C-alpha cells in the first residue's frame, strides 16, 4: 500500500479505480493464486483485464459458490438423524459456528474482494470486530445472567425445566381421560 501513489489510474479516475492504483502487488498475488489453481483462463475471455481488474474471475466465484453450498449442507447435516452427536448438542453448536465462520470468511474474502484490498481493510474491520466482541461480552452480566437472581414474582411466572417435564408427562399420559384421577 505504500506504493499506491506511483501508478496512474489507467485514465479513468472519476469513479472507483483510484482504489486500484496501489494494487499491483496484490494483483500479482491474485494472478499467482489463479495460476496455482489452473483456471486463469477466466480472465482471458473478457475485457475486464484491461480495466485493471485482475482479481475474481467467474470460475473462482463458482468455486466459492459451490463451497458455500457445501458448507450450508454440512451445517444442515447436524439436523439430520445421521448426525452422530445427537445427545451432545454442544458438539453440533461448535461445528455449526465453525462452518458459519468459514462461510463468512469466504464471502468477505472473495465476494467482498477483501482478499485483494490494500491494508486499509484492517483499519476498518479489526476495530469493528473487537468492538463487536466486547459488546457481546458486556451483555453477559446484565442480560445473560438475569435469570440467576430474579425477584420472586418473576420466578413465579417464568418457565422452568420442570414445566417442560410436566408438559411431556401430560403428552405421554395420552390425553383427557387422565385428569379424572386427580
Amino acid at each position, binding site marked *: 500500500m505504500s506504493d499506491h501513489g506511483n501508478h496512474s489510474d489507467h485514465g479513468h479516475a472519476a*469513479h472507483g479505480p483510484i482504489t486500484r492504483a496501489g494494487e499491483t502487488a496484490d494483483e500479482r498475488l491474485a494472478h499467482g493464486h489463479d495460476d496455482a489453481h489452473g483456471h486463469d483462463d477466466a480472465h482471458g475471455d473478457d475485457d475486464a483485464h484491461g480495466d485493471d481488474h485482475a482479481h475474481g474471475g467467474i470460475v473462482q*466465484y463458482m468455486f466459492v459458490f459451490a463451497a458455500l453450498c457445501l458448507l450450508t449442507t454440512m451445517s444442515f447435516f447436524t439436523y439430520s438423524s445421521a448426525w452422530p452427536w445427537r445427545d451432545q448438542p454442544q458438539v453440533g453448536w461448535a461445528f455449526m459456528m465453525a462452518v458459519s465462520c468459514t462461510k463468512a470468511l469466504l464471502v468477505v474474502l472473495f465476494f467482498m474482494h477483501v482478499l485483494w484490498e490494500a491494508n486499509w481493510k484492517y483499519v476498518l474491520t479489526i476495530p469493528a470486530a473487537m468492538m463487536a466482541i466486547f459488546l457481546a461480552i458486556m451483555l453477559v452480566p446484565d442480560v445473560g445472567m438475569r435469570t440467576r437472581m430474579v425477584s420472586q414474582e418473576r420466578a413465579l411466572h417464568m418457565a422452568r425445566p420442570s414445566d417442560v417435564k410436566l408438559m411431556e408427562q*401430560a403428552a405421554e399420559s395420552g390425553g383427557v381421560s387422565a385428569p379424572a384421577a386427580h
Partner: protein
Amino acid sequence: MTASSISIPHGHDHHGHDHHGNGDHGHGDHGHITLQYQPGLPLSRGKLIMWLFLSTEIMFFAALLGSYVVLRFGAPVWPKPHHVHLSEPIGAFNTFVLICSSVTIVLALEAARANKSSLAKRWMLLTLLLGTLFLGIKAYEYQAKFAHGIYPAVPHGRVYEKPDLYYGSAVRARLGEPAIIDRLKEIDEAPAGSLKPEQEAARGRLQQIRKIVASPDQQAFDLAVVADQVMPLPSDHAGGSGGHGGGHGLNDVFPELKLPVVIPGGNMWASTYFLLTGFHAIHVIVGLIVFSILLLYKLGRQDAGKIENAGLYWHFVDLVWIFLFPLLYLF
C-alpha cells in the same frame, strides 16, 4: 516546484515553501506541472463510506446476535425449533437463495466491469428476484408463526410460559367470549357427518378441556393436559417435522377458536426471533430498493462503482443471515 528547478531532487523538504507545494510529482521534461491527487486511502469515496457504514453495521448486528446468544444460553428453558414451528429445510433453502443472490450480484459487477451492460442488467434483475423470493419465504414463515399465536407482542400473542392458573384462566376467558360460545354450541350440536372427520374426532377432547378449565380445583397437571391438547409440543425432532401431534392439536383442528397455547420460553424466543429476522428483513428490503434504483442506470463500466458498493452491502446482508440461520434454526 517549477520545471526550472530541475536540480532539486524529488521528495526533499524545500518544496513546502514553494507556492506549488503539492506538485512534487511534476514531470520536469514536459516543461509544465502535472498535479497528481493522492487520496489518503487508496479507495474511492463511496467505497470508503460504504465500508465505514458496514463496520457500524457489524456492531449493530453484533449487539443483536450477542443479546440473542446470552439470552438463549442464560434462559432456564428455551423452546426447541419445532416447539415454535420453525422448519429447518425452509431456513436452509432461504440460505441457499441468499447465497445465490450474492453470486448474481458479483456476476453483475463483473459484467459491468467488462462493459457488458445488458448482461449486468440481467444479473441485477436476477438478484432482485432472489431477494424478493427470500422475503416471500420469510413472510410465509412469519405467517406460520402468526397462525400458531406466536407474535412479537402481547395484543395478538397467545403464548404462555407454563401451564399455570394464569394459563387456565386465559383459556377459560377465551372460551367464554360470546363468539366462541356460539361456535362451541355449533360444534356441540352439529349432526354427525356435518363436521370434518378430524373435527368429529376432536369434539370429545374439546368438551373435556372445557370441563377442566371450568373446574374449581384444577391441578397443574390437568392444565398441562389442556395445553397439550390445545397445541402439543412436538417431541424431539424425529427427522421429519413434528412426529407427534403435528396437526392434531385443538388449535389445528379448530383454527377459529384461537386458544391460548403454552410454549415454555416461547415469549423470549418470539421477541428475539422477530427482532433478529425483522431487522435482517429490513436490510433485505433496503437492498432491494437499491437494486431497483440501480436497474434504472445503464450498468456499464461507468456504473461499476455503484454496483460494487451495493454488492458490498448485499454481501453483508448475506453474511448476517449466514450466522442467523444456524443460531435460530439449528441451535
